[in-house]
């Protein structure tokens, strides 16, 4: 089963994403900030990361930067989730190492589609891409 790591300081957001992702047949683990997220990614196999921007101890951008510098973790797909809807922020996220950028509030269908796409569990979409 593909493993998703959710990194968000809001427990409600983590529960919400968990519900959607488990419903889509993915296994889920959680972290409360970028620092804990980094520890988890180093300790276990992760197929997809969902990361919030604003968190204590280590924000989403710093997390992505450290992730992409970590041996063996440069290619783990990461979706950044942010309140910012401006184009400049989208490109800033990609420059930091995000593969995908979603704006809050994230809908269930949107999250499920991107999660399946990026964990390779959506064969029809893979063919189209």
């Amino acid at each position: 089963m593909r493993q998703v790591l959710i990194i968000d300081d809001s427990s409600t957001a983590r529960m919400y994403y968990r519900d959607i992702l488990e419903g889509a047949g993915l296994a889920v683990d959680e972290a409360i900030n970028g620092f804990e997220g980094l520890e988890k990614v180093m300790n276990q196999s992760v197929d997809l990361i969902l990361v919030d921007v604003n968190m204590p101890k280590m924000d989403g951008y710093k997390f992505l930067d450290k992730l992409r510098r970590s041996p063996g973790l440069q290619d783990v797909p990461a979706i950044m989730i942010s309140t910012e809807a401006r184009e400049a922020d989208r490109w800033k996220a990609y420059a930091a190492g995000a593969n995908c950028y979603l704006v809050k509030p994230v809908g269930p269908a949107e999250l499920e589609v991107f999660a399946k796409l990026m964990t390779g569990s959506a064969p029809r979409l893979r063919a189209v891409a």
Partner: protein
Amino acid sequence: MPLIQSSNRAAEVAASPIAEMGADALQADLQSDDAAVRRAAVLCARRCGATVLLAGRLEVENDHGIREMILTNLVRNGGLAAARPLVNLLRSDDADLRNAVLETLQGMSDAITPLIEELLADPDSDVRIFAVNILQSLKNPAVPDLALKVISTDPHVNVCAAAVDVLAEVGRPEMAGALRNVAARFPDQPFLAFAVRTALKRMG
């Protein structure tokens, strides 16, 4: 035998008190290129209570150890006067600085509650979200009512969702009606609906 006693020299040269310096000298040292000089200046400012001087350094201090010293001192000794200059840094484009300041405000005592109430009315919805995040950490018994006010009046769905999060932990049963109302105010919002359902269950 590879194990040896650590030298006593360091202990004997006991920590000599950092010499008191005037405000001008302190300001100059706070801006030194030498991190060791800046560190000593921060320690001195902490000792003589010049906390407000330190807040001005946050935007430019690159040494993380020194920055952390400034931030913990603001939490330890800063009141409303020390908190005010930090507010502008919440608007910074630098996510690292912004979140470090947010965390510092979250750690400050209930004395900053009046400032948080002002921030809850800020024109920028992201700043209002930060204000709600600060509520999450304050111990002030007024917190549940402040969060209630947000869900009853804020025009932005993300701000309301953050406040619902707070109520999931500290909401009172009589607030159930207001929670159902905010869900009704923003229809077709699956995350908000989920947050409200969770809060209703947790509030008992």
